[in-house]
C-alpha cells in the first residue's frame, strides 16, 4: 500500500510537470500578455521596461527554467496583473471554491442517495417516476440557465435568498469560511445547489441502477432467507454494495466540481478560483493560469488516490496495485 502511494505520487509529479510545460508554452502561443498590460499609447521605452520587468524579454525556454527554479522554492511567479505572487492569489480564492464544492458534494449525497434508493426500491410508484424525470432534467438543462432561473425564483421573485456574492465569513477551527455564518450559508445555498444539480442527478441514477441490479442478486435473497429485517437488508447488504460505484464516481466528480465551478461562480459572482481563472485567462496572466492548472492537476491526482484507497476499503475484493498511470 505504501509503495502504491509513493508510486502514485511520483506519477503525479510527472503529470504536474508535463502540465506546467504544456500550459506555460501554450499560453505563450495564445497571445502576448504585453498587449493586454500596456496601454496602446505607451511609448517604446515604457514597453521595453515592462517587458523586461516581467522577464518576457528572455527566450521562452529560459523563462521556463526560471519559473521551474522558482517552483522548487514554492514561488510560482508574480501575477502580471496584480503584481502579487500567483500562489497567494490562488490560495486566497481557494476556500470559497472548496466550500462551494464541498457543499455541492454533500447535497449530491444527501439528496441523491435517498431519492435514488426510493426510486430503485419502488420503481412503479408515481413519486419514483417523478424523481427519474427530475434527474433527466437535472442532467440535460444547462447549468447557466438553471443558475439564472434559481436566481429569478429564489432571489428576485420570492426574495428568500441573496443572489450574488459570498456573504459574511467567520473563522472557526482556524478556517475562514462562509459555512460558519447564517448570512454566509444563505449566500452559499443557491450556487451550491446549482453546481450540485448534475451530480444530484448522477447520484440518483447510479443509486437507482445499483438498487435495481442488486435487488435481483442471490445475496439479497439469501439475506432475506436468513430472516433479516428489510431495513438491514437494504441498509447493510444493499447499500454496502452499491456505495462502491457511487463513491468512485463522486470522488472523481469532486475534482470536477473544484475545477469547473467556473460557470456557477461567474453567474453568482462567487469569488472563487474559477472566477480567478477566467479573469486570468482573459488577461493572459500566465503565472496565475499555470499555477492554477498545476494545483488543479494535483487536486485530481490526490482525489484519485483517495478514491482508490476508499474503493479498496469498501470492496474487499480489490487489492491496491498499479495499473499504469
Amino acid at each position, binding site marked *: 500500500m505504501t509503495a502504491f502511494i509513493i508510486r502514485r505520487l511520483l506519477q503525479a509529479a510527472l503529470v504536474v510537470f508535463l502540465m506546467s510545460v504544456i500550459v506555460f508554452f501554450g499560453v505563450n502561443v495564445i497571445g502576448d500578455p504585453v498587449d493586454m498590460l500596456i496601454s496602446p499609447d505607451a511609448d517604446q521605452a515604457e514597453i521595453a521596461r515592462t517587458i523586461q520587468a516581467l522577464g518576457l524579454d528572455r527566450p521562452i525556454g529560459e523563462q521556463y527554467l526560471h519559473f521551474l527554479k522558482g517552483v522548487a522554492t514554492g514561488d510560482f511567479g508574480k501575477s502580471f496583473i496584480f503584481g502579487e505572487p500567483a500562489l497567494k492569489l490562488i490560495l486566497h480564492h481557494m476556500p470559497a471554491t472548496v466550500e462551494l464544492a464541498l457543499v455541492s458534494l454533500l447535497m449530491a449525497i444527501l439528496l441523491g442517495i435517498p431519492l435514488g434508493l426510493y426510486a430503485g426500491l419502488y420503481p412503479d410508484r408515481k413519486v419514483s417516476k417523478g424523481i427519474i424525470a427530475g434527474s433527466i432534467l437535472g442532467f440535460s438543462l444547462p447549468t447557466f440557465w438553471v443558475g439564472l432561473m434559481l436566481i429569478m425564483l429564489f432571489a428576485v421573485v420570492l426574495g428568500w435568498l441573496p443572489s450574488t456574492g459570498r456573504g459574511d465569513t467567520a473563522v472557526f477551527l482556524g478556517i475562514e469560511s462562509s459555512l460558519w455564518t447564517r448570512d454566509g450559508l444563505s449566500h452559499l445555498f443557491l450556487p451550491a445547489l446549482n453546481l450540485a444539480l448534475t451530480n444530484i442527478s448522477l447520484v440518483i441514477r447510479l443509486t437507482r441502477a445499483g438498487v435495481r441490479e442488486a435487488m435481483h442478486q*442471490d445475496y439479497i435473497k*439469501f439475506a432475506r432467507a*436468513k430472516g433479516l429485517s428489510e431495513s*438491514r437488508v437494504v441498509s447493510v447488504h444493499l447499500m454496502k454494495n452499491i456505495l462502491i460505484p457511487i463513491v468512485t464516481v463522486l470522488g472523481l466528480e469532486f475534482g470536477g466540481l473544484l475545477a469547473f465551478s467556473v460557470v456557477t461562480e461567474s453567474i453568482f459572482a462567487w469569488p472563487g478560483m474559477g472566477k480567478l481563472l477566467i479573469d486570468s485567462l482573459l488577461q493572459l496572466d500566465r503565472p496565475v493560469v499555470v499555477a492554477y492548472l498545476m494545483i488543479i492537476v494535483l487536486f485530481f491526482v490526490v482525489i484519485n488516490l483517495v478514491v482508490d484507497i476508499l474503493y479498496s476499503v469498501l470492496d474487499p475484493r480489490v487489492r491496491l496495485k498499479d495499473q499504469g498511470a
Partner: protein
Amino acid sequence: MTILAVDSLKTHFFTRAGVVRAVDGVSFSLGQGEVMGLVGESGSGKSVTGFSILGLVDPPGRVVEGSMLFHGEDLVTMPTREIRALRGSRIAMIFQDPMMTLNPVLRIDTQMIEAILAHEKVSRKEALKRACDGLAQVGIPSPEQRLRNYPHQLSGGMRQRVAIAIAFLNNPDLVIADEPTTALDVTIQAQIVHVAQNLCRERGTALIWITHDLAVVAGLADHIAVMYAGRVVEAGQTDDVIDRPRHPYTVGLLGSVPSANRRGQRLTQIPGMTPNMLSLPEGCAFRDRCTHNDERCKESPEITTDSGGHAIRCFHPQYEKAPA
C-alpha cells in the same frame, strides 16, 4: 408427524408477455426429519416452489392459490412479519450458486452473526462462538480464521459449506436446498451432499433437496416428487420412483442418467426442448415430447395414487420393465 403440507400451490408470474404458471397446483407433504427430492428439468418450477414456501417470490410473481401448512399454520395467509420470523430460524434455504449467495463485501462472521441475532437476543460473543461451531460442523478447517475472511477468499465448495452452516445455525425444522451442488465440481458435490445429509440426520431436520439430477437424490431422499412444467407428474417412495418409474417423463429422466445397473446401454435423451411456459400444449403438458402420446392426452390427466402411495399424472403409465 407432518411438518409441511403443501396443497394445490399455484405461483404465477404476471409478466408483460403473459401469465407464467411457474407452479401450477403442486402438492406434497413432508414429515419431521424426512428427506424429499424435488426433481425436474431446468424451468420446471422447483426453485419457485422453494421460494413460495419462504414467501420470497419476486414480483411480478405471487402465490395465487393453495395452502402451505407449516406445523399446521398456513404460510400463504401468514402476516409478513411472522413469515420473516420463520425464515432462517424454522425454515432455511441453501441456494444454487455459492459464488453468488454470500454478500461479497461482508465478512463471513458478519453474515453468520446477523443470522443468529435476527432471531435471538444473545451477545455477539455467544453468536460468534455459535458461528464458529457451525463452521466446524460443516467441516471447515480453522474456522476462527475463516470467520474473518471475505467470501472471495474461499473456494466454491467452502462457500457452499458456509451457506449450509448458516442454514443450520438456528437449528431449523426444514431446510430447502436448491440445487446446492449443481455449480460445483463432481468431487466436491459428494462432500456437500454428505455434509447436509449428516446435519439433517443428527438434528432430525427435514430436507427438501431440489435437483435436476435423479441420481443425486437416489441415495439421499426418502421420497421423490418429479416436476414438469409447474406440476408434479410423479411422486412416491424413492425406490418406487427410481426402480419402477411410471411416468414417461421420469422414465426419460432416468434414461439420461448413467447408472451402474444399466451399464453398456446407451443413454437416452428426452426428445424435444424444455417447454416454453407461455405456450404449453393443451392437455398433458408433456404431450409434444412424449412417445406414448395419443388422442386421450389432449385432455389434462389428473394425478392418481396407487395403494403404495405411488402417484402419477398420466393416461398411459409405464410398467416396471419400462426403463430397460
